[in-house]
């Protein structure tokens, strides 16, 4: 490989048109500024309330003075408007609240997350933002945002796992603890009740969003974790939907297949890949997403499970 010694010259000649321009520098600075700004959102809010209060006070005083002058009388003698400003309701009222319905509020199966028979494009995982998908990393375990449901009820929450200790656009470069590139620093992260390590939830833009355990930055299962530790137990399953094959709506069949998956899977690698999808509908209304390819499933690591696919095809063909 004599010419390898000339690689610097060759590469600089062949890639000479590729330069880190001032435009790229400007973009980099902008991203760094955004990252720094988003790391300190709460401080910004604390600093901003005092000027806002001063402006509001000044406006109220000006308005009062204007009324005094135009009415020619002291405002204190003016009749108080009779219009109700605040409304109230007695305890025990049956009047419905204005809280919107969420997917977890409706019966299982009322909302279809996917259409059976469609493949690779069907995914519940939210798209990447820049170089990383939206995620929360908790001491090395990574959870990726699911685009659906867009919000869940607090009744689904389990224990609080902690608060986001660091907001970082590139969580893989974070310093540990709970790091996110979506959820603000200081926001609480919760387990989903009864689901162990598969899902967590956290507030993002006013909605409780769900995140699913996935592989990330060369890390999948940690220690002695099993596939079940990153998904769910068979008894949590309500239905299964394997893209291109069909949906198992019978709970008993779905749970039997899930048990087969959990018992008969062999860990292959930390990566996650596949061209199709398997969705696991849970009895609490949430859905887990897995990639499927070559008789293997993956989300948090890739697991070989040919027996599961054989049984699934048989079950659909019944």
């Amino acid at each position: 490989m004599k010419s390898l010694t000339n690689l610097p010259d060759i590469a600089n000649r062949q890639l000479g048109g590729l330069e880190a321009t001032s435009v790229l520098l400007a973009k980099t600075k902008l991203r760094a500024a955004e990252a720094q700004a988003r790391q300190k959102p709460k401080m910004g809010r604390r600093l901003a309330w005092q000027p806002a209060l001063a402006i509001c006070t000044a406006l109220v005083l000006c308005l009062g003075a204007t009324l005094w002058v135009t009415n020619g009388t002291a405002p204190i003698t003016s009749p108080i408007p009779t219009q109700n400003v605040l409304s109230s309701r007695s305890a025990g009222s049956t009047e419905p609240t204005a809280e919107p319905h969420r997917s977890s509020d409706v019966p299982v199966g009322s909302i279809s997350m996917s259409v059976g028979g469609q493949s690779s494009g069907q995914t519940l995982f939210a798209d990447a933002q820049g170089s990383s998908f939206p995620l929360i990393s908790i001491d090395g375990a990574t959870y990726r945002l699911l685009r659906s449901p867009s919000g869940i009820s607090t009744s689904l929450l389990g224990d609080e796992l902690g608060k986001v200790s660091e907001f970082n656009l590139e969580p893989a470069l974070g310093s540990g603890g709970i790091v996110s590139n979506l959820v603000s620093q200081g926001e609480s992260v919760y387990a989903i009740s009864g689901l162990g390590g598969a899902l967590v939830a956290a507030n993002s833009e006013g909605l409780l969003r769900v995140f699913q355990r996935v592989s990330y930055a060369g890390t999948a299962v940690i220690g002695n974790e099993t596939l079940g530790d990153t998904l769910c137990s068979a008894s949590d399953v309500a239905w299964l939907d394997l893209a291109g094959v069909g949906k198992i709506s019978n709970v008993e069949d779905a749970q039997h297949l899930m048990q087969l998956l959990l018992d008969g899977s062999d860990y292959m690698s930390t990566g996650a890949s596949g061209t199709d999808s398997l969705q696991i509908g849970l009895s609490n209304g949430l859905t887990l997403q897995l990639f499927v390819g070559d008789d293997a499933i993956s989300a948090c690591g890739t697991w070989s499970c040919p027996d599961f696919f054989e049984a699934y095809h048989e079950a659909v063909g019944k």
Partner: protein
Amino acid sequence: MNEYSTPDEDARLGKNGGSDMPNFEELYEKYATDVLRVSYFYLGDRQRAEDVCQDVFVRLMTNTPELQEGREKAWLLKVALNRCRDLWRGAWVKRVVLGSPTFEMIPAPDDSERREDEDAMMVAIHELPATFREAILLYYYQGYGISEIAEMLELPEGTISSRLSRARKKLEQIIHEGGQAQ
């Protein structure tokens, strides 16, 4: 938490926090093009290479690691390669199933004379398995010694030597088979 967010990273690469350290813009001016080209050589995707370059310098700006004088480029390349490795793995489906953007030469405007054998070697290096490609890029392209590469990649020197040797053989094989071998 992961392979490239180790808190000891800066310490291993040395720190002194000296006041003579070049500032951000000087580092960008000196090394960003190298970071960009190595990333492009690794990924074969200009957009992703630019993303990596941005990531590296955003980290430099936001985390302000204390770098040992003269080791700044090693730190930048280490962070870039770790990011490339992550993207390379993460993009497996897109790369293998959908097909990744073709690795193309981006010669300087005044370089009208392109040599076929040089093209072939560039493409062949890009086709090497990722671990071999890293070793070749750092050793032959960026001129680092085996011990420096071992430190950057956190691997024994023997592993680096072995990878370089196997990479050369694989490279010859790819070139002789017209870039079809993998």
